[in-house]
Structures are given as C-alpha cells and as structure tokens.
C-alpha cells in the first residue's frame, strides 16, 4: 500500500468525520432550541477530524517504517529462502532483486536464485499491505467513534482544538532546533572517530595539510595539520573581505542614512540589498573569470612574478563585495535607530553633519555596527563557492595575497566529494573541519546577538 493512498484515506475519513460532527453539533441546537453550544459547530468538526486523522496518520507512518522488516522475515520463513547464500553482499542483492520484481519495479531477475523468492515476496507484500490498510481504517474509526461519542452541547471542543493547534505550532518551532541538534550530534560523532585516528593536537596546530584519500594503512598524522586552512579562511574571509566590506558598507550606510535624499535612498537601498540575493556561484564566476585574471595581471605589472591565476586576493575582494549588504544594512539600521534627538542635540551645538556622524552617531551605533560585522565575518568564513572557484586548492601557509590559498570550506568539499571511503581519515577530516567552522561561526553569531540585545536595551 503506497503511503500516498493511506494519506488520502486518512484525509478522506477526517473530512467525513468533520462533516458528521458538525452536523451533529447543529442537531443539538435543533433538538433543543435555545441551547447554547459551548463551542461553535466547526470546532466540533475539527475535534473529530483530528481524532480520526492524527492517529491514522501516525499509524500509517509507523507501519510504513516497520512493514519492510515484517515482509522480509515473512519471506525468510519460506522454503525458497533456504537456497540463498548464508549471509553477506550477495544475499542482500538477491533479496533486493526479488523484491523489486515483486513490486513491479523490475521485469526480470539477474540471479536465478532470486526467482524463487518473487512469489513469496508478492504474497507477503499483499498480506502486510492489507493488514496495514485494515488497521489504519480501524484506528481511524476507533478515534472517530471515541471523539464522536463525547460530543455534547456543553462539550469543550474549542479549547481542545486550540490546544492541538498550539501543539502543532510547538512542533513546527522545534523542527529547526532539533535539526541543529542532529547536525551537532552527527558532527561530534564523526569528529570523535577522526580524532581516534589523528591526534587533535596534530590537527589543530600542524602546519602541513596534504591528506591522501587513496592512501592505505595507518595515516600519517603530520599530513593533517589544519593551520594552513584556518589561516586561508581567516585571511580571505576575515581580513581581505573585511578590508573591502567594512569601509564600503559603513560609508554606504552613512551616505544612505545621513546624506542621501529620500528619492536616492529609495532607489539605492533596494539595489544594494539585491547584492545579497545574488547566488554565490555567480559571484564565483565573477571572481574566477574576471577579477582573478585582472588581479594577476595587475600583480605582474607591478613586478610580483609569483602571482597565480587563483589568488587569495581575488576571492577575498569578491567576497568582500558580496558581504557589503550585510554590513551596510546592519549599520544602516543601527544608525537609523540612534534617536533623532541625539542628532538634533549635536547639530544644535553647532556641530557639522560629519562631526555629528563621527562623534555622536557612530559611537552610539557602534554595538550594532560591530554585530553586523561579526555576522558578516561568520558569513564570509562559511562561504564556499567563491573560494572553490577563485582561491585554489593548495594549502599554502603564506601572507602573500597573490598566491593560491585554500580554506576550510573548500577542503570539506574536496574531502567529501572524492572517492575515499568513510573509514578513511581523509574523509573524516571533513567533519572535524566542519566542527571547527561550526563552533567558530556559532560563537561569532552568539556574540553578535548578545551585543545587539544589549544595544537595544540602551535606548528603550
């Protein structure tokens, strides 16, 4: 039985229950004119519909999860199963093959032994599907009957339905949080495995990074020194990109809030914010195809012959442009949040606009600006596409911005998209890198949120 049909069935029964319960509620009113129902008929309808739909759906989901196991064990009991190899890869393949044929997804078997299993499979699937269907309907009717029999004129259907809605909203808000926790748990798990093979000290403080996913045997801890990656990440994301983004973002925020006329602001602010919506892959093209060659030519023109096409400065420049909107929109908001009274107070003292900006507005808005910069940094160091396309893959530990460099995010991509197995430290190193990156951006975001919060309280 396909899940879609069970779903439709649950909805259909719910709709039926909704209509039945609603008309029952109307009937209460008709039977004794003048009675006041505690809840509107619609709430009675929803109450019954929920009691039909929710248990039926829960059962359907559960059944969907356990029925394959039941089917397999049923098939194992069949005499034809004794012909299968005892265990291992071949056995699994044959079972899967037989099942595919039984479900009509494949037309014939490759292994002769599997042929004998097709019929038992077909029988088992039919049996368990029918059981699932019948039980689902039974559950729906049981829930519906229970709810329907409780309906009375003074039944508190409204409060119960409201409670169910609240539960739904709670679950919705928990999804993101639980996902985050799930990510952390899986990261921790794989990171611990990695640190079982490579010492954390070698990883965090080693200066040589050249993992080989194809190597066999015990890994050489010396190849997993992540310092060049951390350095590349910070150099591109937090230094070069910020040198571009902080002044430009701040100055554009100042222009937009203090100098621009309303008309100019109305056009420029959305235009600037569009920058934030450009897919990073597109920035990547731009960095790799336009900026990087220009940077190389410029560097060679001033006599830096080592300049390569892939360079930290090309990636950093484009990344800086990409995060200008983050800095400028946070700075814009926090400058605009400084009360007009501050500005008036300063102007009334005879300060010029620029003195007012430098001495009153910026200091007052500084916490918000700092928070914006931190969010921008965490965005920049997590950025992947631009560095993949423009910064290069070689883990150089150098301060020369015209050399190729690599970052944590790039190496995560490189390690996970290769052909290495999941037992190999090279693949697992991606999780350790991800963990470090996650912790750093989490800390930055946390600090930024705290700063913003304290700053908000200052003016209220």
């Amino acid at each position: 039985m396909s899940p879609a049909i069970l779903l439709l069935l649950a909805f259909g029964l719910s709709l039926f229950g909704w209509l039945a319960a609603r008309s029952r509620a109307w009937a209460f009113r008709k039977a004794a004119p003048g009675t006041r129902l505690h809840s509107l008929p619609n709430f009675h309808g929803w109450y019954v519909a929920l009691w039909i739909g929710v248990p039926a759906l829960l059962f359907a989901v559960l059944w969907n999860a356990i029925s394959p196991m039941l089917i397999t064990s049923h098939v194992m009991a069949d005499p034809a199963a004794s012909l299968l190899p005892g265990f291992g890869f071949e056995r699994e393949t044959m079972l899967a093959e037989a099942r595919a044929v039984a479900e009509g997804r494949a037309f014939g078997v490759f292994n002769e032994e599997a042929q004998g299993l097709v019929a038992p499979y077909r029988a088992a699937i039919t049996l368990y599907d029918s059981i699932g269907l019948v039980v689902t309907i039974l559950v729906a009717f049981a829930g519906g009957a229970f709810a329907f029999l409780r309906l009375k004129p003074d039944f508190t259907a409204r409060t119960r339905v409201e409670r169910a809605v609240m539960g739904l909203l709670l679950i919705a808000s928990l999804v993101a949080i639980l996902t985050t926790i799930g990510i952390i748990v899986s990261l921790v798990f794989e990171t611990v495995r990695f640190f079982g093979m490579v010492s954390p000290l070698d990883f965090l403080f080693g200066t040589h990074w050249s993992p080989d996913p194809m190597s066999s045997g015990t890994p050489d801890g010396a190849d997993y020194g992540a310092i060049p990656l951390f350095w590349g990440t910070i150099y591109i994301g937090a230094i070069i990109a910020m040198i571009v983004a902080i002044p430009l973002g701040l100055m554009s925020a100042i222009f937009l809030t203090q100098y621009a006329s309303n008309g100019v602001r109305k056009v420029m602010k959305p235009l600037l914010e569009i920058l934030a919506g450009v897919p990073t892959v597109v920035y990547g093209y731009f960095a790799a195809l336009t900026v990087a060659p220009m940077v190389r030519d410029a560097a060679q023109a001033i006599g830096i012959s080592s300049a390569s096409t892939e360079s930290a400065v090309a990636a950093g420049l484009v990344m800086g442009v990409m995060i200008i909107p983050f800095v400028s929109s946070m700075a814009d908001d926090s400058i605009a949040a400084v009360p007009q009274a501050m500005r008036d107070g300063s102007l009334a003292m005879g300060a010029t606009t620029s003195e007012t900006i430098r001495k009153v507005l910026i200091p007052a808005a500084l916490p918000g600006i700092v928070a914006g910069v931190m969010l921008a940094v965490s965005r920049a160091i997590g950025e992947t596409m631009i560095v993949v396309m423009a910064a290069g893959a070689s883990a150089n530990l150098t301060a020369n911005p015209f050399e190729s460099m690599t970052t944590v995010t790039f190496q995560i991509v490189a390690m996970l998209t290769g052909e290495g197995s999941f037992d190999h430290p090279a693949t697992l190193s991606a999780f350790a890198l991800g963990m470090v990156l996650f912790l750093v951006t989490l800390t930055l975001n946390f600090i930024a949120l705290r700063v913003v919060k304290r700053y908000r309280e200052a003016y209220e």
Partner: protein
Amino acid sequence: MNAEAIQTAVKADDKPYFDAPSKMSAKNVSVFYGEKRAIDDVSIEIPQRYVTAFIGPSGCGKSTFLRTLNRMNDTIASARVEGDILLDGEDIYKSGMDVVQLRARVGMVFQKPNPFPKSIYENIAYGPKIHGITGSKAELDEIVEQSLRRAGLWDEVKDRLNDSGTALSGGQQQRLCIARAIAVDPEVILMDEPCSALDPIATARIEELIDELRGRYAIVIVTHSMQQAARVSQRTAFFHLGKIVEYGKTSDIFTNPREERTKDYITGRYG
C-alpha cells in the same frame, strides 16, 4: 547698555516691552512644510537678557518658529522659510551665513533631555571641542566646571564626571543639556518645552535655573504650561494657527489681554 542698567530695566517692569533692546527680530516670517504653511507672516522682537515665552495650543507653530531661530529646520528637507530673521541686525538666512557659527551663538535645549551616550564631562566638553574654543585640558576643565555650576548641577555630579550622562535622572539630564548649551557661551538659548518630560520638582529646579540665567542670555522658551510662562517669563507671545495673536509683557498678557482669543486661551476656554 550695561548689565546693571538691564537689570534695572527688567525690574522696572512698567516700561513698554519694546523699550528693551532687541537681540533677535523676525520680520514677516513664514515657514512652509512642503505646501503646508506652518507659520504665517510672523514678526516679533526678542529682547536681550529677558525670558520670552511662546504659548499656544498644540500645532500652533510655536516650536516650528523656535526652530527657525537657529535654523534647526534646515534638517527637515521639505521645510522652507520666507522673510527675515535677524540676529544683532544680521540676517541668519542670508547666503553665506555659517550655520555652525549661528548655532554656537544660538543654543538649544530640547523637549526630551538628550544627553549624548558619553560621560558627563564629554557631554559638556563636546561643544567647546568642536568649536575649538580651547585646546588646553586645564581650560576645558574650567569650562566644564563653570558650565555645570551655572546649570546648578556641579554639586550633584562633581564626583562622577566620568559616569555616563544617560545614567542621570531626567531632571539632571535636562540640566546637563542646559549646561552643554551654556558651555559654548551662546548669546541666545532656545528651550523647546524643556520641562514637559519632567516631574514637578525637577520642573521647579529648571525654572529656578532659567531665572538665574536670565540677565546673562536672551532666553526663548516654548511651553504648554501657562503657569510656567507666567512664572519664568517677562515677555509672552501667544501663537494660534501659525500667527502671533498677541505679544507683550507677560503681566499684561495674563492679567489684561487685549485680544479675546488670548483671554479665552488663558482662562482655559479652549486650546
């Protein structure tokens, strides 16, 4: 006219108000916000070393007019001023007028206390620093102390000059703002409902302070409280619908108004 003579003039309040020497004068001033006329052909003489009160119902234009006196309306893009406003005979709206210099001479205190989020000391030192009044630390200390003393705040804050100005109470903040305005040694101080955000005790303290400052500066105060106007001012102008209905000695306005509308407003019949 020397200071004693002016004091005598103030005390001998039976003279007609226009006898006092004029510090600022407005001639046929109209102010527009876009198409809307907020001030309609207002002419007034603001005397030296007196307190002049602007009273009138909300929206009558008294704050707008006050803000034209040090060109604070310049910060509102749609505002446009017609007519002449003279400070010591010089048109403050003439081209080439330096707004920075003007505002150093005509200071302003706002409705809500607006100390900068800096230390008490830095709040006072802000004006002298931007105007380059002094470069020496000792002189600056002197100006800060003197300004705070004149604003009657020195004894309360002398031990915590490095605390934030925003940590003071509302009344203290407003006196800090007055001290800040005094620190650049202005000639005129404009006060836009300086007590409307304060409790009665803090209000009384500010009113005392205004009375002490009179004689040293020309003070213009916008107020909603007629009692306050009667208590602190020597001249009162009654604004209504963007025009001055009546302007004269405070005692005349409150005891013997010439206009029926003034009388109605003063006696609380409308507004």
